[in-house]
C-alpha cells in the first residue's frame, strides 16, 4: 500500500533500465518499495538495475524481457509483471521511450514504425491491461513518463514528440476515466534530462539530471498532482511556448 506520503511498496516499471526509471526506482526503494519488477529489452541492464534496487532497500526484485516493436505482447507482459510481484501492485511506471536522430530515420517507414510503437502504441496497449488490473484491485497508481516536448511539438523531433503528445493527451483522458475507481494516473513531463537517451544532443535551457527528476517525482507522488513537471518551472515556460505563433516558435527552435 501507499503510505501517507505517497510512497509505494510494490512497484512495476515498464522500461525499467532507462536512466530516469532507475533514478526513480532508487528513490522509491530508499523510501518504502520492497518488491520491484523491472521490464525492459536488455537483460544485462535490467539485472544491473535490479541489483541497484536491492542495494537501495528492495527485498524482492524480478525482471521481464520484452521488445516494444509490436503491441501484441503488451497485455501479456503487464500480466507477467503483476504475477511476478505476487501481491497488490501500488505503482506502475510506464517509462518506455525511444529517441533516434530524426533526420536519419524520417524517410524510413520501418524506423518510423519503431518510434511510434515504442513511444505511443505499445505504452497505450500496456496501459489498457494495467488499468484493468488496478481497477479490479481497487487501488493503485500509474505514472506515465511523457515529455515537455509533447506540449509543443518541434520540427527537429516531431516523430518522438508527436508520439509522446499522443500518449500524453490520451493519458489525460485516461486519468479522468479513473475518477472514483481508487486508481489514479499521473503524468511526468520532464524537460531535457542528461541521460543515455539524450547523449550528443545540443544543450537546451533547463536541462536537469536524473536525480533531480526523481526528486520531483517523489514530491509529485506525495502531492498527487496530475502533471508533474521537471523542473517545475517548465510548467510556466511551456505555458508560454505552447501559445507562440508558429513562425516565432520555428525561429527559436531552429537549431534545436
Amino acid at each position, binding site marked *: 500500500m501507499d503510505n501517507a506520503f505517497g510512497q509505494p511498496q510494490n512497484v512495476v516499471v515498464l522500461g525499467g533500465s532507462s536512466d530516469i526509471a532507475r533514478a526513480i526506482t532508487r528513490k522509491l526503494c530508499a523510501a518504502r518499495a520492497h518488491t520491484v519488477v523491472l521490464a525492459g529489452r536488455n537483460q544485462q541492464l535490467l539485472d544491473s538495475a535490479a541489483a541497484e534496487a536491492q542495494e537501495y532497500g528492495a527485498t524482492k526484485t524480478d525482471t521481464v524481457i520484452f521488445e516494444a516493436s509490436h503491441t501484441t505482447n503488451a497485455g501479456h507482459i503487464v500480466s507477467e509483471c503483476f504475477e511476478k510481484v505476487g*501481491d497488490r501492485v501500488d505503482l506502475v511506471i510506464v517509462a518506455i521511450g525511444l529517441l533516434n536522430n530524426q533526420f536519419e530515420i524520417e524517410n524510413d517507414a520501418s524506423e518510423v514504425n519503431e518510434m511510434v510503437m515504442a513511444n505511443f502504441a505499445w505504452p497505450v496497449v500496456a496501459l489498457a491491461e494495467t488499468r484493468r488490473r488496478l481497477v479490479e484491485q*481497487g*487501488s493503485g497508481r500509474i505514472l506515465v513518463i511523457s515529455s515537455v516536448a509533447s506540449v509543443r511539438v518541434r520540427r527537429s523531433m516531431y516523430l518522438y514528440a508527436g508520439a509522446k503528445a499522443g500518449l500524453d493527451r490520451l493519458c489525460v483522458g485516461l486519468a479522468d476515466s479513473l475518477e472514483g475507481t*481508487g486508481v489514479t494516473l499521473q503524468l511526468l513531463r520532464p524537460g531535457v534530462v542528461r541521460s543515455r537517451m539524450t547523449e550528443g544532443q545540443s544543450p537546451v535551457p533547463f536541462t536537469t539530471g536524473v536525480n533531480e527528476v526523481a526528486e520531483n517525482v517523489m514530491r509529485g507522488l506525495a502531492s498527487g498532482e496530475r502533471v508533474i513537471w521537471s523542473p517545475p518551472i517548465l510548467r510556466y515556460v511551456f505555458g508560454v511556448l505552447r501559445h507562440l505563433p508558429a513562425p516565432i516558435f520555428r525561429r527559436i527552435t531552429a537549431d534545436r
Partner: protein
Amino acid sequence: MSTKLYGWGRTAPSFSTVVEPDSDAQVVNEFATGSPLIPRGLGRSYGDAAQLSGGVVMSNLALRSMSPIDHDGVVTLGAGVSIDELLRVAIPQGWFVPVTPGTRQVTMGGAVAADVHGKNHHVDGSFANHVRSMNLVTPSGPHEVSPNADPELFWATVGAMGLTGMITSVTLQLMPIETDHVLVDTERFNTLEGVMASMRERDDAYQYSVAWVDCMSRGAHMGRAILTRATHARAHEVQEPTLDAPRASKVVVPFDAPSGLLNPLSVRAFNEVWFRSSPKFQEGEAQSLSAFFHPLDGVRDWNRLYGKKGFVQYQFCVPDDQPDAVVSCVERLSSSGVASFLAVLKRFGPSNPGLLSFPMPGWTLALDLPVGPSALPSVLDDLDELVLKAGGRIYFAKDARLAPQNARRMYPRIDEFLAIKERVDPRHQLTSDLARRLQLVGK
C-alpha cells in the same frame, strides 16, 4: 457502490464498499459473502486503519442500542454509540467514562479496537481495562468475550484495529462523578527536562495529567511546556455543583484551508502566544469536563485546517527508563524545522494484556505534522529508529507511514496475535489498508 474514505489525517484515501449492518445477524451475513472486510466507526484513527481499498468497510454506526446505567455504573452499549452520546446520558446521572481520548467522537467499538487512552492512563490504564465484556462477530461466528470468558480472544481484539472481527456491543464500567467540573493545576516550564521531572515526581497525586510541549522553539527554550493536572471536583469544592451534558460544537471549518496555512512560521507564532497566555502557576481552577478533556471538539472538522494534503500524527511511547529518547525526538524535530502544531506529552502506567495494545509504562509523545515538507518522511524514519532503540513503539491508530519490518519489531507479540486470529478468521477475510501496508496479516 464505491465510497472514498480517509482517516482523520486525510492522507492516502481509498475506495471501498460501505455496509451498515444493524444487528449481529446482518454482520454474520456480511462475513458470509467472503469479501475482504474491515470494521469502521467514526473514522477518527488518523491513518489507514479503518479503510480497505477494493474491499468492504463495515460501519458500526447503525449499532445504536443503549441499556439503562445500573446502580453500579455498568452499561451495555451498541458498538456504534459514541463517547459523546454516552456522556449526554451519563453525566446528568453522575457517571463519566473511565477513559476518554482527546475527542468524544469515537465509538465504543473504535475505543476498544484502538484501546484508547486518556490523561488518566498513569492511574486508570486504557479503555479495555474497564470493559466487562463485549460481543464480537468474527468470520467463524458470534462470540461473547471478556477477561474471563475467552480471554485470549478478548485481549487479541484489544488494540487490534478491527482485525479479529466486528465488535457489536460493549459492556462498560463507568466512573462516578459528583460534578461536571475538574479542578486544574497549571504550570509552565522552560525546559523539557523540567516538565518531565515534575511529571515523574508529582503525577501520582492527580488523576489526570498532560503536558503541551513546544517543539518549535530552539536553544535554551527547547521543549518548553505547559503542564495541566486535574482531579474531578467534589460537590463541596465548587460553588454551584452541576451535572450538565456536553454541548454540541458550534464552530465548523467549512472547507479545506490552503495547505501551507500551518507552516513553521505560523506555528511558531501560535506556540509563542499559547505559551505566554498560559499562567506561570495556577492552582484549583474549575474547568468544565469538555473544556478540559475535549477542547478540539469545540471546532468541527478541525482536520481541514491542514489543507488538502492533510497531516500525519506521530505518536510513540518509550519505557520509563528512556526519558532521553523523548528529548532526542524533540531535538530532532526542532532542528529539522518541521512544524508541529500540537505536541502532547504524557506518562503511561502499566500495560494491559492486549497483544497489540499500544501503551507501555513510561512516556508517550504525540505530534501533529502537516504533510508537505520534503524532509518529513525521512525525519520520521529517523524518529522510528530512536524509538526502536529505546524499546518503544508507535500507535497503530495514528500511523500512516511506518515501515513493515519496524511494526514487527515494535509489536513482538504479533505472532501470538496471528495464531488467535487464525482460529476465528481462517480464510484471512479481515484485513485493512493498514494491515496490508504493515504486512500484519499476510496477503
